[in-house]
Every structure is written in structure tokens, then in C-alpha cells.
């Protein structure tokens, strides 16, 4: 296709007609925000979701996306959903913690060792999570995953003691991170995620936590030299809509949104795992030194830290004790199928 005047105008006309016909006459418009940049794997999958919903609803339900953090960070987006300026979003655990914090049991530090463990436990707990979102004025349409979170640093961090002498970032206002650092006896530097890149440049902080993919997406990897290969946690995310929006949909569109949201979540989890693996290779290629797990602290010590952090979160009622115990039991069952209880 060319961009000469005549043909360009035709393209404009056709695009104009398409746009008008796609959005303007939809009975329901779902304004949906995400931090995923336009053109990224995540955004492409979300757009596939929108296309499927629009087609199957015969144009009655239309998505309008705001990618790349255009609508602000997660607390901003949550506020806008509560004011009905937006109706849905893809949130990480940070945002989900402000909707239904018990779901973050899936992010307890040093709990899961593999994707298979995560998948097994999440599947069992999902009805409880869905109910929790519902009771808090949201619907959880799909589960996402950000991936295994690692420590990235300018100086080698082999043990938690090494971190005590470093300037370690804490995502401001995140009870999960705060509990972990308290249990580890580390004094972090609380900062908004927006300030991390600059603060790594100025030296205000020299140690951060992130997934391999996110460290590339946010360009943090250019400011650090090491990645500790022991994962802290498997960070999660979710596709959510407000109940104010969802409850007004006809039953068939509710079913459609649930069904397609769940499938989209699965595709997002799979794509994220693949991209995180590719990102690990890329980080190596670009000069990041990986510190092997066996150079770090003992499993017993990690478990002790996890349990202290869990007690802290229980004390704040951020995650109920009963849910933590149930999660541990499910995990035990998965690891020891021959002695499994009937959960």
C-alpha cells in the first residue's frame, strides 16, 4: 500500500468506517487499563481477547484499551475503576492486594519451587479467590503470572546478610514486601515503582527485585550487574472488572467474558513463562552475572524467613491463617501424593 494522497484518503475513510462501526454502537464498552506496552506480547493477547469477545457478542461488548501505563500506575487505575472512569484492568499482586489481599498467599516468599506446584495449588484455591474478588466488588476473569522474582544488584548478593549492607528497594505501600524484609531483618528504601529506574541511576538504591522480563521491560537491567538465581516468589496478576460494570451485563455476556477471560489468562501465563525464559538468556548475553542458588543460604533458613513473614501478614489480617495453612497443606499433598489428604 502507498501513502499517496488519494490512496491515503481511502485508507483513512475505510479505517474511519471500521472504527465507528466497532465502538460507537456497542451496548457495553469496557475501558481496560494495563501496564503492558502497546505491541507487547501481553497487549497482543489482550487485543485477541477483545476481538473474540466483540465477534462472539456480535458487537454488543467492545473493549477500549489503555496500554503502557497511560492511565497511571496500579493505585491510580484502581482509583479510576472505583470512580467508574475505567471498568477493568490487568493488575499485578500489588494492585490485587488492594482488592482481595488473601489471594497473595500465592506470592508468599520461598513457597513454590516450580510452575507445576503453583498451577496445582492455584487451581484448588481458585473458587475461593473468585468469591473473594466478588465480595470486594470485582470479578476475577483470568489469572496471570508475572513470573519468578529475583534479586538484581550492582554488587553480588549471595546471602540475605549481603543485602543488609545494600540499599534495597521496597515497593512503597506493599505489605508483602515489607513483611519479607522485616523477617529478613533488612532495612529497605521504600519508593514508588516509578522512581526505581532513576534511583538506581543516582545510587539511592543499588538492589531491586523483579522478574527477568520486567527487568528488561523497565530497563533496570542496564543499571545492575548481578541476578541471584534463587527466586523470592512467583509473582501473580489478574484480569479484573468492576462488579458495577459486570453486574449490568446480560447473562450471556457475563458468561462470555468469564469464559474468554479465563482462556486469555492461561495464554498470558504461558507466554509470560516463555518470555521470562528468553529474558534470562538475554540478560546473560548482556553481561548480567547469575549467582547460583547453591551459593546462597540454606533452605531451612529460607523457610524460617517465609514463616516469619507469613506470621506478620496473618497478624495484619492481610492473609488469613486458615488460608496459609490450607495452601501449605495443598503444597505438601502435591509434593507427597502418596500421603495426600482430600482437599
Amino acid at each position, binding site marked *: *500500500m*502507498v*501513502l*499517496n*494522497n488519494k490512496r*491515503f484518503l481511502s*485508507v*483513512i475513510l475505510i*479505517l*474511519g468506517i471500521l*472504527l465507528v462501526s466497532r*465502538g460507537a454502537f456497542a451496548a457495553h464498552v469496557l475501558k481496560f487499563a494495563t*501496564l503492558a*506496552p*502497546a*505491541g*507487547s*506480547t501481553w497487549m*497482543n493477547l489482550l487485543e485477541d481477547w477483545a476481538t473474540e469477545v466483540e465477534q462472539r457478542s456480535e458487537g454488543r461488548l467492545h473493549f*477500549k484499551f*489503555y496500554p*503502557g*501505563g*497511560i*492511565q497511571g*500506575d496500579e493505585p491510580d487505575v484502581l482509583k479510576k475503576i472505583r470512580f467508574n472512569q475505567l471498568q477493568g484492568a490487568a493488575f499485578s499482586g500489588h494492585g490485587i492486594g488492594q482488592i482481595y489481599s488473601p489471594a497473595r498467599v500465592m506470592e508468599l516468599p520461598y513457597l513454590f519451587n516450580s510452575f507445576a506446584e503453583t498451577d496445582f495449588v492455584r487451581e484448588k484455591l481458585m473458587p475461593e479467590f473468585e468469591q473473594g474478588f466478588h465480595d470486594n466488588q470485582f470479578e476475577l476473569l483470568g489469572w496471570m503470572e508475572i513470573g519468578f522474582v529475583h534479586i538484581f544488584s550492582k554488587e553480588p548478593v549471595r546471602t540475605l546478610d549481603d543485602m543488609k549492607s545494600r540499599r534495597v528497594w521496597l515497593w512503597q505501600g506493599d505489605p508483602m514486601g515489607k513483611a519479607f524484609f522485616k523477617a529478613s531483618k533488612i532495612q529497605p528504601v521504600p519508593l514508588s*515503582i*516509578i522512581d*526505581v*529506574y532513576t534511583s538506581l541511576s543516582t545510587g539511592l538504591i543499588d538492589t531491586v527485585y523483579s522478574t527477568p*522480563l520486567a527487568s*528488561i*521491560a*523497565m*530497563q533496570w*537491567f*542496564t543499571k545492575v550487574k548481578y541476578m541471584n538465581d534463587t527466586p523470592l516468589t512467583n509473582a501473580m496478576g489478574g484480569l479484573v472488572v468492576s462488579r458495577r460494570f459486570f453486574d449490568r451485563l446480560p447473562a450471556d455476556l457475563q458468561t462470555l467474558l468469564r469464559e474468554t477471560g479465563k482462556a486469555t489468562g492461561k495464554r498470558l501465563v504461558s507466554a509470560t513463562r516463555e*518470555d521470562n525464559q*528468553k*529474558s534470562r538468556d*538475554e*540478560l546473560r*548475553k*548482556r*553481561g548480567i552475572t547469575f549467582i547460583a542458588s547453591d551459593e546462597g543460604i540454606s533452605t531451612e533458613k529460607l523457610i524460617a524467613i517465609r514463616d516469619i513473614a507469613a506470621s506478620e501478614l496473618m497478624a495484619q489480617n492481610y492473609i488469613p491463617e486458615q488460608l496459609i495453612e490450607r495452601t501449605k497443606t495443598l503444597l505438601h499433598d502435591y509434593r507427597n501424593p502418596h500421603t495426600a489428604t482430600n482437599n
Partner: protein
Amino acid sequence: MTLLKPLTTSLSIQLLLLGITLLSGCSMGKIVARSSTSILDGGVDAMNRETDLLLAEQAIPANIKLMEGLITEDPDNQDLRVYTAQAFYGYAYGFVELADSERAKALYQRGFDHAGKALQRWHITDELLQGDPDKLHQAVSKLNKSAVPALFWAASNWAKRIDLDRTNPTSIAELASTEILMRQVLKLQPDYYYGGASLFYGVYYGSRAPMFGGDFTRADANFSAARKVSNNRLLLIDVLQAEYLERQRFDQAKFHQLLTEVANTPQGHFPEMALANQIARARARYLLIKEEEWF
């Protein structure tokens, strides 16, 4: 007699060229390629002044193939490599990207490959470009002004290729390296290509949320710096500010204002860059259609 004289002259030139070839070990093709650079200067200037988009769209591919043919004869000719990189960028941005992003991605890659080859003269190897950003920075920071065109067109093509390949973690990781090349351009020759380095930084800081390294204040400052260099005559600056910064900043009024002004700017106020301004007008009209979808 009148016919004989040109023939004699032509023969003399050929003999002279043959002599030079034998003496220097240079091939005839290489000599032709080297002597063509001044003609290409004029060609680039003429293309920049073109006001007919269709004519430009049809002419640029032929010029690219001519230049690639000359490069085959003289692969180490940096000037030819840079011209070709520039031509790939202009063609992909002006005529391909909006219609076929996959094809545009491949064209930007070819542009980057040519500029990358030019950079090898200064020992900026593929390995350096694809490796540790710190090592790349060390090497690039030693370069002088003569490397600016190669650095600029390498970074420009590379960044656009990445922009169209955001599903690939490898590409996203490369973004930091493009900035290292452009940082040196800004340091050595900030007015190169009408303040192109500032324009790059306007997009670099304006196209991402602050949590991803974006910085709207710095983006604004860089767009302003680019305007100053071109005396506010290059319409592409307003288009890029609207497309990247105002979209990311979610400022619909400014987005609309910038693009409407570009679309309504009459021809002829910057004849040296008439083609770029025509492309900017076309892109502004396309982006105005996206306004409803984006805001």
C-alpha cells in the same frame, strides 16, 4: 572532428582509470562507486525537496537498489552505507510502516545493518552492539564527529525496528544500546539532521510510562530543542510529540491541536525538507483518525 573529441576524451579517461586500477589494485566498480558519492549527495537533496509522495515512494526503492549495487562493488564505503541506511529509514517510515509493520521491521533492520557495517570502521562490531551495554558505551564514547552519521542512522533504524518488535525480549533489551549510540551523537553534533538526536530523545522519554523509564519533562525539553534547531519548520517534531508523548501523557487536547496544525500547515515553508513534511502531514491525518480509539 566534433565526434572524435569526446571519444578521445572518453578513451583517455578510461585509460586513466585503468591505470589507476592497475596501480592501486582498485576495481573499476569500486572507483565508480567512490566517484558516485557526490552524485548521491545531490540525489538525496533532490529527494528531500520532493513534494509528490507518490513520486518519492516509487523512486526511493530504485535508488536503494542502485546504492546496494554500488555497495557490492565497494562494501567498505561508509558514505554509501550511511546513505543507504538513511534511505531505508525514510522509505520504511514514510511509505511502509502504517500499512505493513512486518515489512517495515525488515526494512529498518536492513537500514541498521548498513549503518552497522559503516560503524565497523571505528571498531564498533556486531558483538559490541549486541553485548554488554557498558562495553558498548566505552567504545562509542571514544568516537569523534566523523562517526556521527553512522551512529545516527544506526540508532534511528535500530530503535524503529525495536518499536515494531515489542513482543521480543531480545529487542526490548536492545533499546538501551540504541540510546548509547544516540547519546554520542547528541554530545558530538546536536544539530545533526535538524536536531535528530533531540527528536530521538523526545520519543525515547515520551513513549514510556515513568515506571518504564519515561520522563515527560525531559521529553518536552528534547522536542523543544529539536524545534529550535529546525526553527520550528520540521513538522515531524509535532507529529512525534503527539504520537508518543501526548498519547502516553494522555493529553487529548494537545494531541489534537498538534496534529490538526500539522495537517493544516501549507506547503512550501521548508523546501529543503519538503518530503519529510509531506510525510508528516499524511501521518498527522492518520493519527487524527486514531484519536477516538486512543483517548
